[in-house]
């Protein structure tokens, strides 16, 4: 530890020299790492946006429970209270015939005049039940079994599709993280090996003088960490530009998609990229160093 502390300046200089010894190759490694991390950043943003949309839709997931004819308003309200007690029910509200008609008017917009053709209100009163998507099956069963409920209209297909999409996006995200992680580690490990090979005489001399492996390897570890971090910063800049442009271009024109705030998305993406690049840099450098055998530098 004392040696590390006393030689901070030396390690910094040696790391810089290692990078400058092969500037073009290291520049390409930096750009490659930056672009891969940029891809990861985009997937992460897609993941975040998808998660946010799914979360919003999940909160909005609802079923409509229609009760038997002849039920009084008091009985219907008692039924609402019973439904509220079911596990997985977030909220239950009684919707009268008039409100049901008004809602349809709103949905139909300019076409709402079609409703004028009916002499009487064709809509029935029902109970609107917001549910926890995870418990959809049990909630449907329990609501159907309530005394006084005639039938339940569910959006099972839509809701199941939403759930599948959520799972799919998550699985894709994990796969991309795995692929990007492995690729970055390989690039950095290769760069470290190249740096060590370029400095083999230097390393051999240090070995002959009795320097421990930790002392010999530290500048290479620093250079790998520095280049990957720089790649992470490059990716963060690109992600920021993309996000700024994207929100300006599409932010207002797709109001039906509940996007997360730009600041939240950006904050998460940037900090994620910096942390992941540092971790991958460290991992790649250690992997590169550990793969070097003494005869490689003789």
């Amino acid at each position, binding site marked *: 530890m*004392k*040696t590390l502390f*006393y*030689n901070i*300046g*030396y390690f910094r200089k040696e790391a810089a*020299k290692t990078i400058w010894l092969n500037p073009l190759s290291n520049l390409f490694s930096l750009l490659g790492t930056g672009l891969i991390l940029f891809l990861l950043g985009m997937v992460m943003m897609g993941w975040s946006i998808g998660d946010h949309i799914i979360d919003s839709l999940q909160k909005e997931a609802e079923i409509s429970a229609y009760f038997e004819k002849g039920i009084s308003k008091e009985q219907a309200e008692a039924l609402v209270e019973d439904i509220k007690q079911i596990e997985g029910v977030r909220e239950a509200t009684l919707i009268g015939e008039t409100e049901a008609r008004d809602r349809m008017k709103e949905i139909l917009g300019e076409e709402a005049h079609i409703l004028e053709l009916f002499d009487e209100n064709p809509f029935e009163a029902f109970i609107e039940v917001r549910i926890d998507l995870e418990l959809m099956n049990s909630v449907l069963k329990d609501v159907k079994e309530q005394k006084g409920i005639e039938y339940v209209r569910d959006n099972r297909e839509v809701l199941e599709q939403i759930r599948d999409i959520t799972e799919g996006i998550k699985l894709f995200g994990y796969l991309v993280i795995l692929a990007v992680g492995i690729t970055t580690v390989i690039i950095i490990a290769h760069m470290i090996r190249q740096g060590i090979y370029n400095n083999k*005489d*230097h390393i*051999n*001399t*240090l*070995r*002959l*003088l*009795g*320097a*421990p492996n930790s*002392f010999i390897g530290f500048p290479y570890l620093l250079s790998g960490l520095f280049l990957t971090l720089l790649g992470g910063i490059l990716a963060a800049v690109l992600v920021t530009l993309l996000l700024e442009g994207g929100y300006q271009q599409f932010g207002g024109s797709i109001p039906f998609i509940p996007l997360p705030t730009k600041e939240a998305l950006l904050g998460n993406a940037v900090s994620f990229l910096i942390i992941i690049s540092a971790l991958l840099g460290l991992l790649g450098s250690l992997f590169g160093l550990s793969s070097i055998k*003494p005869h490689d530098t003789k």
Partner: protein
Amino acid sequence: MNSLAKERRAMGVSMIEANGVFLRYKDGTEALKNVTLTIKQGELVYITGPSGSGKTSFLKLLMGMEQPTGGTLKVFDQPMTGKEREIRKLRRKIGPVFQEFKLIEGRTVLENVMIGIRFLGISPKKMKEAATNALHKVGLSHKISSKVENLSWGEAQRVAIARAVVRKPALILADEPTGNLDYENAVHILKLLTSFTDSNVTVIITTHATHLIENEKNATFLRVNAGEFTIERSRNGGYDEDIIL
């Protein structure tokens, strides 16, 4: 020589013990044959012999760069067949002067000398002081900031010597340290290296320049021929049975 050094030498603490050592390279070259000798702490030993006789091979064994293919060799009482980690620890007690210098290009003279002590837990200020002093001793104070690739061979050799002595080693192994120096500098460097025996440091020097060492009284002279060691002359001119068995 100070009294402590004389006392220790008299006590006969072994620094190097070789017993029937053989070294055969992978290509079949037999570099050393049945070397049996003991070198004590504080001893000054010159190894002479023609090119390719095995001088450098012997130093390589002492540095752990090669391992004996037969017999046993102990340096600092440690068998030289140990793990790389142990060999590295042992090397930290040795001040090596390599025939081809092994200086690090792109670095200054001062940086090259300091590299020898960077991993020994010395503070940067003390490292710089020690390196500056070592360079002063080899007469290179004025070249402290020069890049090593801009030095003459003689100057590069003196940097290698400064890097070896700056570590205050217990054993100095110098492979042809005067090979590229003019007479005046060669005498100066030999005087510097041999002066370390006063601090109980064992100094082993291989050389072709027998004219520079023939008047040395306090040294042991070993001759190598085709990998076989013989004693030419021991300390004070007599035959020392302790050295070659």
